[in-house]
């Protein structure tokens, strides 16, 4: 039996900086998970993924990451995505520094 499709976002790393990025509804890459588009339909997600993968001159390693939709936008279901969103925990470096 196929598993139910759980909500996801499209994520990758920026080609030039390596930063973690997410795809927005407008099809632009953002550094902020809160701005990412939540995909709840499997067929739609597959199409969007193909589109994203075609942007190989901007991003590297595109994939779908599991999320829980909340009022503040998508929240990671796995700690790996949580760390990718935030940056390393030993320094205030990466995205967390830029946001501060």
């Amino acid at each position, binding site marked *: 039996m196929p598993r139910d499709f759980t909500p996801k976002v499209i994520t990758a*790393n920026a*080609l*030039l*900086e*390596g*930063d*973690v990025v997410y795809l927005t509804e407008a099809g632009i890459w953002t550094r902020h998970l809160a701005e990412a588009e939540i995909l709840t339909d499997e067929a739609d997600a597959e199409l969007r993924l193909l589109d994203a993968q075609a942007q*190989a*001159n901007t991003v*590297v*390693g595109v994939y779908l990451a599991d999320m829980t939709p909340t009022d503040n936008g998508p929240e990671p*279901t*796995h*700690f*790996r995505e949580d*760390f*990718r969103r935030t*940056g*390393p*925990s*030993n*320094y205030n*470096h*990466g*995205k967390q520094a830029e946001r501060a």
Partner: protein
Amino acid sequence: MYSYNEFDSAFIAERNAQFRAQVERRIDGSLTEDEFKPLRLMNGLYLQLHAYMLRVAIPYGTLNSRQMRTLAMIAERWDKGYGHFTTRQNIQYNWPELRDVPDILDALAEVEMHAIQTSGNTIRNVTADHFAGAAADEIADPRPVAELIRQWSTDHPEFQFLPRKFKVAVTGSPNDRAVTAAHDIGLRIVERDGEIGYQVLVGGGLGRTPMIGKVLAEFLPEADLLPYIEATVAVWNLLGRRDNKYKSRIKITVHEHGIEDIRARVDATFALIKPTFSGVDQTMLDGIRAQFAAPTFRSGPVHHYTAAYADNPGFRAFADTNLAAHKKPDYAIVTISLKAHGATPGDATADQMRLMADLAERYGHDELRISHEQNVILPHVHKSDLPALYTALREAGLGTANIGLISDIIACPGMDYCALATARSIPIAQEIALRFDELKLEHEIGEIKIKISGCINACGHHHVGHIGILGLDRAGVESYQITLGGDHREDARVGDRTGPGFAAEELLPAIERIVYAYLAERNGPEETFLATYQRLGMAPFKAALYDEAASYAAE
């Protein structure tokens, strides 16, 4: 130390120019990521969790102050002001941008450094005892032969697409500080009837299937070394499992065929290869050896040292833990701890790197070493300079007196940086170090090695830690498995798994229970943690870990 010749410089310059063009073509879209990835990996450039990561080789861990200053400059100019020294005598930069990497490589080339063969299925950076050329217990300096192997293996056409990566380590002392038993080939310099030769170990390695190397040759004459290693790699290159990444390392080949079969094949290949070696390798080795000549040691009184040792408890603690015996009695080997309590093990800021470079120039005959334990060593310091050196280190936050103690932890980058990680390593190391510093138990506990890896690849050497910690992912939650009794020295041993893992917040109390069990069970302060474990086995530690009734907690 070794200096590049014209050929070396031209080779690196050409490689860098090639890579610069490749980066440009990736950025302008003429290369796809699939085409570019192997090219960037050939130049030590990985893509990690939050950024690119550049791995730079520090051959056999040896640097001069000029090189260290360049590492600092790179950290400041193109990274976030620090670098991470690893267990394989590399430095990793965690935040370079793709566009800048060719400039970084050019800056490295100016001081005769590079990132070639720091990735990929090739012979990787050759590592050696970090006390090489200085240790009182040394039979011979392992670096000339490590350099010979580096020259032979770099860009060796036959060995660029091996079944898997291949790691070689060399020790020149019977007290093995290079973890030779956990390398694909481990070389131990030995002496027999006044003649220098090599004991050759093969098939050691950590990772998913940890194995201790087996003796392939008990005593190999010096002239046979290079053809013999070439024969060994050639045999594995043919036999190695290319069908299965997990079975591709030479340790599996040795395990599957048996050491006798491998030895017979190596001997046969060696007999074929040997005549093709004209002896020029021996001439080269002599030339290399001349470049590793010891500095001109000073003689002079050491009463500054003895006076400071008697009067200054801080200095005494530093001297007791961070100094090692030098072959010249008036000299000492100084290990600078990159493990200040709460710091990230192995990280040094640009300022700290520059200070260490200055101190090496001023007090250390311009030599620095990087240890596999992620510390920095000044191998030759006259004892009379030690008090001044200590003061300078302390002012820069580099005077921590904890070498070999519970906070001198090896930790891989783990999930804070590494794309392969299943859990974090660094915060665990930070927590343990801070906690035992707070308990003021560190010196009481004495020698103990904690080693942490963020996944089964074992970059943090957890298998050979007295206490090994392996980070895992248990249904989306960080979980940590503990092993006990591992040893990385000449009688290396893989640690024993204690039982079920611990959640991140349960781990520190678990480590504390192990340590208290040791303190309660040991036959006095002379008996180290490892010795106690070897005497008693797992039982009391397992009880302390899992049996609610057994409580050794400090009352």
